[in-house]
Each structure stands twice: as structure tokens, then as C-alpha cells.
């Protein structure tokens, strides 16, 4: 992950990056925010939590933190349980 405009992407000008989303390797456009990542996967942002490289990302950062090549991103939701 990276904050927009604060840290250079290791992919430089590459248009697409490869990362692992919920255990599956995916190819995504670069500079994709976490919010956008949820949207293109039809995931309701209201009911999930996002973990990037084993760190829980505060909801306040989802708009400006971008996916980076080789990130391990996991999206969790609530499920039934006792």
C-alpha cells in the first residue's frame, strides 16, 4: 500500500500491477485506492474490513491509500457465529 502522492510506486509508470487479493493473484490498474478496489469487486464498503500486508487499515484511509505491486490484501466480512 502507499499513500497517494507521498510515496513512489515501485511499478513506476506501469499501468498494471499484480497483487494477491483474498488469496488469489490478480492484475489491477496501478494507483487504485482501496475504496476503488472494493467497488470494482462489488463489495459493500460499509460491512467489511481491509487488511494489507497483515495490517488492519483504518476506514479513514481507504480513499487515499493505494494498492501496490505484490501487496497481500485481504477483505473480511461478518459471518454468522456464536
Amino acid at each position, binding site marked *: 500500500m502507499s499513500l497517494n502522492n507521498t510515496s513512489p510506486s515501485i511499478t513506476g509508470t506501469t499501468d498494471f500491477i499484480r497483487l494477491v487479493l483474498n488469496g488469489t493473484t490478480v492484475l489491477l490498474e496501478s494507483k487504485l485506492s482501496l475504496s476503488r478496489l472494493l467497488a470494482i469487486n462489488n463489495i459493500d464498503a460499509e*460491512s467489511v474490513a481491509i*487488511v494489507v500486508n497483515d495490517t*488492519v*487499515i483504518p476506514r479513514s484511509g481507504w480513499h487515499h491509500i493505494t494498492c501496490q505491486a505484490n501487496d497481500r490484501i485481504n477483505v*473480511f*466480512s*461478518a459471518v*454468522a*457465529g*456464536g
Partner: protein
Amino acid sequence: MLTIADHQFKSRLFTGTGKFSDQQTMLSALAASQSQLVTLAMKRINLHSKHDDLLAPLQSMDVKLLPNTAGARNAKEAIFAAHLAREMLATTWIKLEIHPDPKYLMPDPVETLLAAKQLCDEGFIVLPYVHADPVLCRRLAEVGCAAVMPLGSPIGSNQGLASEPFLKIIIEQATVPVIIDAGIGAPSQACRAMEMGADAVLVNTAIASSANPIKMAQCFAQAVNAGRQAYEAGLGHVNQHAHASSPLTGFLGGRL
């Protein structure tokens, strides 16, 4: 009225959301139970399958959600799960459960105390699921847990209050609410727990696995209410010998 941390509950029956045959049955059973504290778990989304949205219908009910840390095998994983839950549900309430043993799901007391201490220090409202260990429950209260949740018997076993003698000690010594969690398999057992002075019970499997979960939820609500009222009224003493309830002398005057 039961108070945990700063929250008041009219119902002393807490419920889980697992094991129901379908979501509508689960929601109807929760409504029938009148429960105001409802547990749920968390899981990594399967991006390739469509699943029911659990959260929206629960949030539309008048219930407080209690995420659990099920699946955590140690303190580190449980703390991670608590942070996950806080972001997902915007709540600092967490049911802390750490059970590395998949056969009996016995809670790990050492890891639970470690995680409870840190989460309490971070400002979480921690409700730890533990074995019916009076010493551990005291220690958990001392580190700031808002309640303790000792088990009656193994999770989902419906074996009832196998730990009853130790639950009594925990209740006697308690400085925080005691919620009997796990193993309660029948309304009579929930009633018994409440008669003993438990502050609440948490029931999931017994309702969800009933042939009629909605009716069973109503039965548990009645049992918990009856048990609590009996506790407040005060049970009579248990005696070793008979004590007549009716006069045994003077009747018939020895005419026969």
C-alpha cells in the same frame, strides 16, 4: 436491568447467529428471543461466491452486535481480530475467544488473559470466553474485562451446566457480570443458570439446531426470565430430610 460497561440490556438472553438453516429463520429466531446482544464472527470474503449480507438486517434490529475472535489460536491473532472487528463494525466490544484445540474448543487461559490485558488497555470492552475457572475469572476482571463468559460445557455440545459447582463460585466472587456461555442445550438449563445468579446466558446451538428455532427461542426467553425472577425472589433452602408442608398431628383425632 443488566448493565455491561455503559450499556443496559432488558433481556438477559444473549444469542449467537451461527448454525441456522437459513438467514430468515435466524432473524426470526433472534426476534423471538428478544435478545439485545447478538454475536457474530468474521471471515475472509470469498470473491467468487455470492453470500447473504448478514450485517444489514442485524443492524436494522434493536440489538447490540458482539463480534467474536473465533478462529484465533493465540493472543496475537485474537488482538488482530479485535482490531479487524473495530474497523468493520465501528465497535470496541469484543467477545474474546481463543481455542486452539479443534476437538473440544477449550479456551486457552494463558493466551486469553494476555489478550484481555492488552485489549482492555487499548480501550476495548472485552467479554472473554473462558473455562469455568474462578481464579481466571477474577484475574480477567482485575485486568479490566467488562464481563466474564465461563462455559457450561463444550461449545455446541448441548451438555448443559457440567461446570455448575465452579460456575457457582464464579458467580459468588464476581465483581463483573457473569454470562454463562457455551453448552446450554435446553431452556431448563438456562433457567437453572439464572436461578444460580448468573447475570445472563448466551445461547446459540440449542436454538439454531432445534426443529423449530423460532419456538425454541421463545422458550429460552421465558426460561431465562423465569430463572432470573426466581433468583430475585430467593430460592428456599435445600434440606436433607423432609419438612412437612402440612400439619401432621391432630387431624382426624385418632378416630381410625
